[in-house]
């Protein structure tokens, strides 16, 4: 590279905006298709369990409290999830989706990675059942 070309390059680079972003302060807008955290809308779920069966990494478990009353809880283990979106593709009631803005999923402990989705009282039942495994009576 000639000396003159180098000077030109230096001047240009001096006034150019940096390519990097100041990450925690400025966030890159993620595209719509980004496969971030799994989302679940229990209203339409029929409890068919296909998502459960199809997950390559056993990251989701569908717990049925009452099939007739459509009370389901989806336990999602984010630490196991490979974010492949196969569960989203197979749910024919479109209950599952992958969020494109929830992608900052790092945590210091394992607890935040287990997420329960469902109606509040159902989740409560399940969490309690896990907390006291001996008093294991299905809530009716």
């Amino acid at each position: 590279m000639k000396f003159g070309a180098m000077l030109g390059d230096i001047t240009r680079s001096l006034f150019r905006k940096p390519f990097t972003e100041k990450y925690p302060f400025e966030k890159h807008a993620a595209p719509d298709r980004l496969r971030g955290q799994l989302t679940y809308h229990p209203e339409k779920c029929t409890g068919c369990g296909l998502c459960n069966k199809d997950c390559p990494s056993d990251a989701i478990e569908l717990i049925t409290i009452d099939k007739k009353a459509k009370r389901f809880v989806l336990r999602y283990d984010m630490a196991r999830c490979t974010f492949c979106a196969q569960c989203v593709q197979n749910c024919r009631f479109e209950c599952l989706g992958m969020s494109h803005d929830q992608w900052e999923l790092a945590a210091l402990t394992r607890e935040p990675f287990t997420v329960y989705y469902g109606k509040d009282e159902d989740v409560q039942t399940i969490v309690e059942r896990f907390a006291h495994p001996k008093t294991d009576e299905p809530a009716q």
Partner: protein
Amino acid sequence: MPENEYQLMELTVDDLKEMKGLVSQRALDGDTVLLNMGPQHPSTHGVLRLLLELDGELVISCIPDVGYLHTGIEKSIEDKTYTKAIPLTDRMDYLSPMSNNLGYVMAVEKLMEVDVPLRAQYVRVILCELQRISSHLVWLGTHAIDLAAMSVFLYCFREREKILDIFEMVAGQRMMVSYFRIGGLWRDLPAGFEDAVRAFLGHFPSEVDEYEGLLKNNPLWINRTQGVGVVTAEDAIAWGMTGPSLRGSGVNWDIRKAQPYSAYDHFEFDVPISEAGDVYARFWCRVQEMRQSVRIVEQALAKLPKGPFITGNRKVAPPPKEELAYSMESLIHHFKLWTEGFTPPPGEVYVSVESPRGEFGCYVNSDGSPKPRRVHFRAPSFANLSALPLMTKGVFIADLVAIIGSIDIVLGDVDR
């Protein structure tokens, strides 16, 4: 010097016996030094351990020791249905997941005798070529930084970032894309894809010129690379080297030309070949390949056909969700595919694709059940790495670093 700062390893009699076939008698007598390089050494590009036998600065022998990144992916696939295995293939050669996906899905497609729509084939070509550019950029950057050219590294990563942004837009992930499905693609291309790729292609060729110019006219670079790590064409073939490492030795062998797959025969491109067989030749081939990839992507974009992005064969591809509302047959296919998976006829296939590193082959053996009996990947990095002892006979330690860089290995690919 405090006593505990340097400790020489005491060899036991058993150790010596084990090493007898590996190192020369001089090392056992203590005339030469045995040195452990890696697995945590930045210039080994991952977790590669090299056992070096040194006479001063000269490498007498070099024994690569792999297995530090063993993931058991081949074995895990045996326990998954064919569709479920796709995300695993991303994770082998993590610098070229698109090529891995392609090799695997093409093998299963061959087993199932499925035709892939032309649009899907073109999109696969576009993405694989972009992947080749991004992989070569990582290689160029890290190779240059090994030889102390820092700025090239930063420039290359800047450009690669733009490709990863395109992947994120298409597949939803930057590296673990899982975009190809058996029979086609996960989804169609998003709006704005073509513009994004054209914008990238618009300025990228001049960037390649710049990076190449930074290195090829640099006397330090030339001294460090020319005449170093020479492999002859016969040796390269005998050791099973493929990809740019083979073409750097003057062998005209590129799977894209020799056994065209996925519509590669619809495009015009050249296969760069260099006769010298040294580090510089391999560098030159890869840089030229980036230019050829640009050519291929441009042609594929210009000719991109319209049409379906996944096969209509319901035996392998799930029906679109709208269809489930009215078609009982689709519903049955849907349930069958997602609960049990499809069952290929018993048999075996081998399909190879040209990944950025060389011939990436996928062998699938089916016993007629929904899960493969055996899947094996022919990893280009593994074969190229096995030729390392040959190239490093009698070189300086500093040149060893240049040679490791020049064969462009990814340890995830080596160990699978």
